[in-house]
């Protein structure tokens, strides 16, 4: 078990809570709008960008944001018109981004490879600092404000994008706003959870909550809480067993999901 100073623990806990809220809130919309494959590629693009930043000695966060937004701008229009099937996106873009990330890391200086690079891959408790907390606080607040301001539009699009258009909503700006927010969210959560597993924090909490409710308001409300629990429990596992944080969060949230499926009232008869 690792023993860390109080201040570092506090930074990690606050960071985990913010990442949990931001990722799972975005996840609610990504999952319901069937954009999981695109989001998955964006998270791995963030990983590749971050790795390139490390090699070129450019801020990895800026590069992560740049890469994931670039993927969104490239794939977004193709997915939007259903010209690309989800499996195709996953098969090509996921492997491309992962390969690029690993090649970039291969060129990273040896010292960086030992700590920062591994943090980018699997996440690190020590990766978070005060500026990350400030960035995550701003992002989480922005997501919450936007979700409240445009709750009608997002709900209508989550139900059916075509029917939202038919009711007179111009859905395209909201679609790209969501992709943009996803790009920033995965990039900012990269240090804690790692590029390979950040998507678990986007998909798993909302999928867990969805097992217990048909009410979208409750799902939007409880997904961030579930995200916080997954993050904190993941960090606890990481402290106790010295596991990478990303892996711990992914393992805990997956087990939690399995339990939720078993006890889901949606699957009970009578």
């Amino acid at each position, binding site marked *: 078990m690792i023993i860390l100073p109080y201040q570092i623990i506090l930074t990690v806990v606050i960071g985990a809570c913010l990442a949990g809220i931001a990722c799972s809130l975005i996840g609610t919309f990504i999952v*319901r709008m069937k954009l999981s494959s695109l989001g998955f590629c964006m998270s791995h693009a963030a990983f590749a960008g971050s790795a390139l930043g490390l090699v070129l000695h450019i801020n990895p966060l800026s590069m992560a944001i740049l890469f994931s937004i670039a993927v969104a701008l490239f794939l977004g229009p193709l997915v939007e*018109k259903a*010209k690309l099937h989800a499996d195709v996106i996953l098969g090509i873009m996921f492997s491309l981004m992962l390969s690029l990330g690993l090649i970039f890391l291969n060129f990273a200086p040896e010292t960086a490879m030992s700590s920062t690079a591994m943090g980018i891959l699997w996440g690190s408790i020590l990766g978070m600092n005060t500026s990350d907390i400030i960035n995550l606080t701003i992002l989480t607040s922005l997501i919450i404000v936007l979700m409240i*301001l*445009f709750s*009608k*539009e997002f*709900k*209508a699009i*989550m*139900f*059916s994008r*075509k*029917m*939202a*258009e*038919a*009711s*007179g*909503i*111009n859905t395209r700006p909201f679609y790209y706003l969501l992709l943009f927010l996803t790009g920033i969210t995965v990039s900012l959560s990269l240090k804690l959870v790692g590029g390979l597993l950040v998507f678990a924090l986007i998909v798993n909490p909302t999928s867990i909550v*969805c097992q217990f*409710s*048909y*009410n*979208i308001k409750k*799902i939007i409300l409880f997904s961030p809480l579930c995200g916080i629990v997954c993050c904190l429990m993941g960090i606890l596992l990481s402290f106790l067993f010295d596991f990478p944080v990303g892996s711990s969060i992914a393992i805990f949230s997956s087990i939690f999901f399995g339990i939720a499926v078993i006890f889901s009232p*949606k699957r009970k008869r009578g």
Partner: protein
Amino acid sequence: MSNHLKYNYIIELSNVDTIYEGEKIPAIRDVNLKIKKGEFLCVIGPNGAGKTTLLETINGLLKHTRGKVNIFGKEIRKFGSSIRKEVGYVPQGFSVSSLMPFLVKDVILMGRFGKIGLFKSASDEDYLKAKEAVKLVEIDGLLKKPIGKLSGGQLQKVMVARALAKDPKILLLDEPFSSLDFKASAEISERISFLHEKKNLTTLMVIHNIPSIPKRCKRIVLINEGMVIQDGPVNEVLNSGSLKFAYKVRK
């Protein structure tokens, strides 16, 4: 929709083609259609004739590739979203996942979301209109049910209520009776006819089952292979050779 009084036809299509992406042959071609405010019109034709394409071209969900589509005197290409705020649309065979996390009452209110506009939440009037639509379609008992748990017929009724909740000026219905039993079809047909009479609601209905054409419908458009092959009074179209030709009836 400030220029409602400035147009001669509420729906006007001139030489319209719509080609799907990746296709060479238009799904509808050279369509000319003029519909006056308050008309009740049915569109008939065999499978794959282009009926749904026509409806989706009219409300701009499908972009036409040639010609002009004007609704309320405005081009759908330029003013699509604002026009659709006044157009109720019931799609054909709409289905949802059984785990879809929305309740029926939420889905019906969503019909008004475009009309409510950005940065505003649903007002008392919005809830009242949604309630009126629910009452009209008689689905009070379904309101708190998850939308994914409804039968095909119930979902169809909900989609009709959603379209009516908008208090539309034009109602586009794509085979609204396809999942309904005989009794429910007759009831919904009666409600739509009632609305048409009461509100002078311009109604365009795609229909497969010719005997189900509502009595208030005075005009039929017959489509075959993407083209309007006959457009006229109900009896004239139904008794014409074009109908037999379109459906390939030999005797």
